[in-house]
Structures are given as structure tokens and as C-alpha cells.
């Protein structure tokens, strides 16, 4: 019998028009919420950027073979004989030059970080010629590839950005010698961009590794043939290895750090959010009390409690959404593409990445703002609907 929606619509219009009359306290709540959303989106964009690097690093048709029981290349070790058996296994894609398999060595060297000047662990990877076919996205953008058998390295673009001395022509300490940077490469944003590459056969003696490796990277014939390939290797009595898809390997490595960053970010934003809820509560209580007489008049005329509660909550929601949009916009402008490096705790080496403010994160930030607004508006809304009409009419 009552035209609920026209009641709600009229009340919302009335409420929104009064926001400007309370611009001071409305702005305080709005920017409080904007700050919370900016921090939430900013922190989560770190995790997003980190996992984007890790996800760009793996391909489903590329597999990684480690010693059985090793979770990372650091913990693995494979003899030359083992790597040969692996490379000869059926199921590996082939080119005219042979099977697409690269036995690799993975060591850590110390280089100063540009941002702090302090030493950090930088991964140095020794590869075989097929490495460039296995990882076809590795692409020299400056200089030239290293020459096989010489003390030369090429450096990923992320590593060049984050560490000192990696420019073209720079020299880096490897063991007791200094090796020359002859090229810089990109790898489609993947983790290889944080690495330095060289010839495995010159890296082995420099690190006294004899004729051993740590991992074999192979390109399998098709992503679907992975299980057959894996079964072939793990059932071979001569081998004691584990076989992992490259994308699973990196996704697994990123889980811990993205979990940590996301957890911390959510905690910080959660605590700030509680503060913002009180800000919104304060604003909406004062919004309601400054309109005590108007609200009482509407109720005296017969407007229902439901529409009044909804209209106050919509007002809080609108403030929060504007605040959320401002915060999300700020986070995008300030953080998107911001470059940094952090420790990959699985490989104990640095990973260069860029903060990544995705549309999903923006939506999440604005959704969070909406929740703050609704919680902050609820109690004032109930108060507005519960004021005794006769007494409230005399106020103001």
C-alpha cells in the first residue's frame, strides 16, 4: 500500500543534497576511507606484482627436473651422467640441434643493491646452449649473448635495475675473478629477468662444482604429455629425480611470500579500517543529529522506519564509495608500476618486480570501502529511525 521505493528515493535525494552542508565532516570520513583503501590496494599490489613475475616465469610445456627430495634448485644436485639420461628420455621436444634440454647450475653471488647500497643475494645461473630454446622468451635487448667457454655474463633487465655494476661492460666478482657483462636480456617479465646467466661449463670450475649440475630444464612435446614424461623419468631405475612443471614450481615458490604480504596488508588495512569505521560513524551520527528535526518531520508525515534506515545507509555508502574510488585512484597513480626487489625465500635470492594495481584489486578496495560505509552508517541509521518523533520535532 505504500510506495516504498518512492519514499526511499525521495529520502536518499534529500540526504545526498545535505552532504554539501556538512562538507567538513563528510570530507574527513571520505578521506579517512580513501587512506585505508589506498594502503590496502598499495600493499596488495606488492603481492600481485610479485606473483605476476612468478606466474610469468613458468610455462606448462616446460618441466624442471631436480634430485628427488629437493624442493628447490638450491637444494638439488645432479651428476653429468644423470643429466644426459634425462636429456635422452623420450617425450622431450627436439630441434635440429637435438633435444630441448639444458642442464643448469644455480649459485648465488653478492652484489650491492642500488636502493640501499647493501649487499644482496643475486642468482647466477650457468646454462647450456639449449637453454635459449627451452626458454624461448629470453631475448637479448642490449649487447650480445655471452660466448661459450669465456668468462662473460648476460644480465636480466630487472637485475640491472636493482643492483649496481650490471650495466653493459660492467664487471662482477665471480669467485676470485671478475667477469664482464656483455648483454642484457628480457624474459617477458618472468623471474629470469632477476638473474645473471653464463656458460655452465665455466661456472662449474669457478664454484668448484666439478661436473655436476642442479637442475635440468626441458621443453616437453606438449603440455598434455607431461604426465607420461614424468612417469618415464620417475620409473627409470637409473634415476632418482623429481619432475615438476615449471609453472607449478614458481607458483609454489610465490605462495609463501604473497601469502605473507597479503596477510600483513590485510591486517594493516583491517586495523585502519576499524579507525575509518569510527570516522564514518562520527560523520553519520552528526549527519543524523544535525537533521533530527527534518527526520522527525518526515516520520511525523508517515515515512516508514525502513526507508529512513536505508536512506541514511545509502548516504554513508555513497560517501564511502567516493572515498574508496579516490583511495583506489591514489593507489593506482602512486603504486602501479613502482619497481622493487624482494627476497625469494625459497631460492634465497632477490626477485625484481613491479607493484601491480590490477582492476581486481581496485574493485576489492572499493568493496572494502563499501563495507566500512555500511558498518559506519548502520548505527546512526537505526538511531535516526528510533528517535521519539514527538520529542525530536521540537529539536533544532
Amino acid at each position, binding site marked *: *500500500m505504500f*510506495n516504498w521505493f518512492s519514499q526511499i528515493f525521495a529520502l536518499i535525494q534529500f540526504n545526498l543534497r545535505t552532504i554539501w552542508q556538512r562538507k567538513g565532516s563528510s570530507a574527513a570520513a571520505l578521506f579517512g576511507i580513501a587512506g585505508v583503501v589506498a594502503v590496502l590496494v598499495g600493499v596488495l599490489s606488492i603481492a600481485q606484482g610479485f606473483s605476476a613475475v612468478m606466474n610469468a616465469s613458468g610455462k606448462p610445456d616446460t618441466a624442471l627436473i631436480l634430485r628427488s627430495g629437493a624442493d628447490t634448485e638450491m637444494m638439488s644436485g645432479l651428476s653429468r651422467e644423470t643429466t644426459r639420461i634425462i636429456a635422452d628420455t623420450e617425450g622431450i621436444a627436439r630441434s635440429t640441434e637435438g633435444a630441448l634440454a639444458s642442464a643448469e647450475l644455480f649459485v648465488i653471488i653478492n652484489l650491492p643493491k642500488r636502493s640501499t647500497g647493501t649487499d644482496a643475494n643475486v642468482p647466477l645461473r650457468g646454462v647450456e646452449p639449449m637453454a635459449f630454446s627451452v626458454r624461448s622468451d629470453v631475448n637479448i635487448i642490449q649487447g650480445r649473448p655471452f660466448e661459450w667457454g669465456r668468462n662473460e655474463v648476460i644480465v636480466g633487465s630487472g637485475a640491472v635495475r636493482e643492483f649496481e655494476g650490471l650495466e653493459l661492460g660492467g664487471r662482477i666478482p665471480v669467485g676470485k675473478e671478475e667477469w664482464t657483462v656483455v648483454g642484457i636480456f628480457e624474459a617477458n617479465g618472468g623471474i629470469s629477468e632477476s638473474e645473471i646467466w653464463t656458460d655452465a661449463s665455466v661456472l662449474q670450475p669457478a664454484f668448484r662444482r666439478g661436473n655436476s649440475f642442479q637442475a635440468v630444464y626441458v621443453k616437453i612435446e606438449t603440455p598434455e604429455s607431461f604426465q607420461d614424461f614424468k612417469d618415464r623419468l620417475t620409473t627409470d631405475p637409473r634415476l632418482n629425480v623429481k619432475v615438476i612443471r615449471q609453472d607449478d614450481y614458481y607458483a609454489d615458490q610465490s605462495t609463501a611470500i604473497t601469502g605473507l604480504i597479503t596477510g600483513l596488508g590485510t591486517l594493516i588495512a583491517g586495523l585502519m579500517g576499524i579507525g575509518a569505521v569510527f570516522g564514518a560513524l562520527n560523520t553519520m551520527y552528526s549527519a543524523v543529529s544535525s537533521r533530527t528535526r527534518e527526520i522527525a518531520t518526515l*516520520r511525523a508525515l*508517515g515515512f516508514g522506519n525502513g526507508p529512513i534506515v536505508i536512506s541514511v545507509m545509502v548516504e554513508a555508502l555513497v560517501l564511502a564509495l567516493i572515498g574508496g574510488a579516490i583511495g583506489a585512484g591514489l593507489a593506482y597513480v602512486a603504486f602501479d608500476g613502482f619497481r622493487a626487489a624482494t627476497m625469494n625465500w625459497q631460492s634465497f635470492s632477490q626477485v625484481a618486480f613491479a607493484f601491480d594495481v590490477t582492476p581486481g584489486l581496485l574493485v576489492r578496495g572499493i568493496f572494502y570501502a563499501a563495507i566500512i560505509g555500511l558498518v559506519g552508517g548502520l548505527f546512526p541509521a537505526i538511531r535516526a529511525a528510533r528517535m521519539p518523533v*514527538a520529542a525530536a520535532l521540537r529539536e*533544532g
Partner: protein
Amino acid sequence: MSVNDNGTLVKVDAATKYFKRGSEEIHVLEKLDMQVPEGEFLALMGPSGSGKSTLLNLIGGLDRPTSGSVTVAGERIDRLSRQKLAAWRARHVGLVFQFYNLLPVLTAERNVELPLLLTHLSRAERKKHVDAALDVVGLSHRKTHYPKTLSGGEQQRVGIARGIVSDPTLLLADEPTGDLDRKSGDEVLDLLKALNKDHNKTIIMVTHDPHAALRSTRTLYLNEGKLSTEPAE
């Protein structure tokens, strides 16, 4: 509209109202009886704090008696739930306030339209009613003005237009001239008188002003919670 055989529109029966202030009970109305026939313009007078506005609130369904009953147009309104009472007010009561209580962010016509938002009338029908109500109070030319650009007398006439726009059973006015100068007050009283006389509106008006009470068809005096036809000594 249902009216008793004897034409009574409002019947207050042994209504008592007290408020609690801390541990103290303040008795405002004490077993009060009152009847208002349809078509009457009743003035309620009495000193401050005598309970005039409280009585008006009971009749208008803005408050409930502590005990006793209030019947309007045959319906016991003191028994209605808050929600039903709000709906009942929207249907049956037009309210005019001392300080007009217009919403400052709405134009005159939008203020007058408010009670119609509680009906099923279409936008075009609402506009027709609003225009008619503003015409009755002589403010058609000011309909797009905001309250702050209107004089006190004009604001009160907009308030009256809002009170009558839904053609309520009963028009209740609480000190409608209390905030106005004599000239504007007279215009408002003339308007109420005309509504009573020409449109047969039943009006109950609370006032301090004996001059205002002169326009009514009957005046009752409230003193210490009791009604009489004569002012207190």
C-alpha cells in the same frame, strides 16, 4: 471516514500521559476526556507546559497515552503498532508546525509533495494535487522557491499546503502563528478558517494567542492536565 452517530470525529477517553525523568514521574495529562465533532475548528489554549502539545500529539498519533484511549474516525489509534501508526498518520493527519519544518533542500512544491510520496499516486497526479494545494494557500507563483527564500508567513503557508495536500481527515496545527508577525499570522489564521469553512476541514489548533483562538469555532482550555471551556483564573 467513519464518524460516530453524534458526528464525533475524535474521541479521547480517560487519557493519561506521564513522562519519566530519572526516577521522577511527570504527569502531563490526567484522565482527560475530549470529543471533537467533524467539521469543527477547535482551539486548544493553556499556559506553557499545560500539555496542549502532548494532547495534540496523542490525537495525531505521534505519541501514545500511558493509559486511556484515543479514537479517530472510529479507529483506536493508541493500539496501533509504530509502523501501522506511521501509515495511519500518512492517510489521516495533516500537520502544521510552529517552525514550519520544511526541508531546506527541497523547493516549495517538493516539500508539499512529500506526503503524496506515501501514496500510489502517479507523478502527474501528484503534481495536480500539489498545484491545487499551493493554489489554495495562494503560493502558486512561489512553488519553485526554496524555503530560505520565502518569508515566515509564506513558509507557513507552504507548511499548510503540505498539511492539506493529501486531503487528510484531520488537520492539526501546533502554534501555527507562534513564529510569525501579526500580519502574517492573520493571513495564516484566515487560511485555516477558510479551510474549515469552505472545505469543511476538521482542525485542531494549539495556540497561546487569544487573538488566534477567536477564529476557531470552539476554544478549550487546558490547565494542569484538565480541560475546561473557561480559562483558568
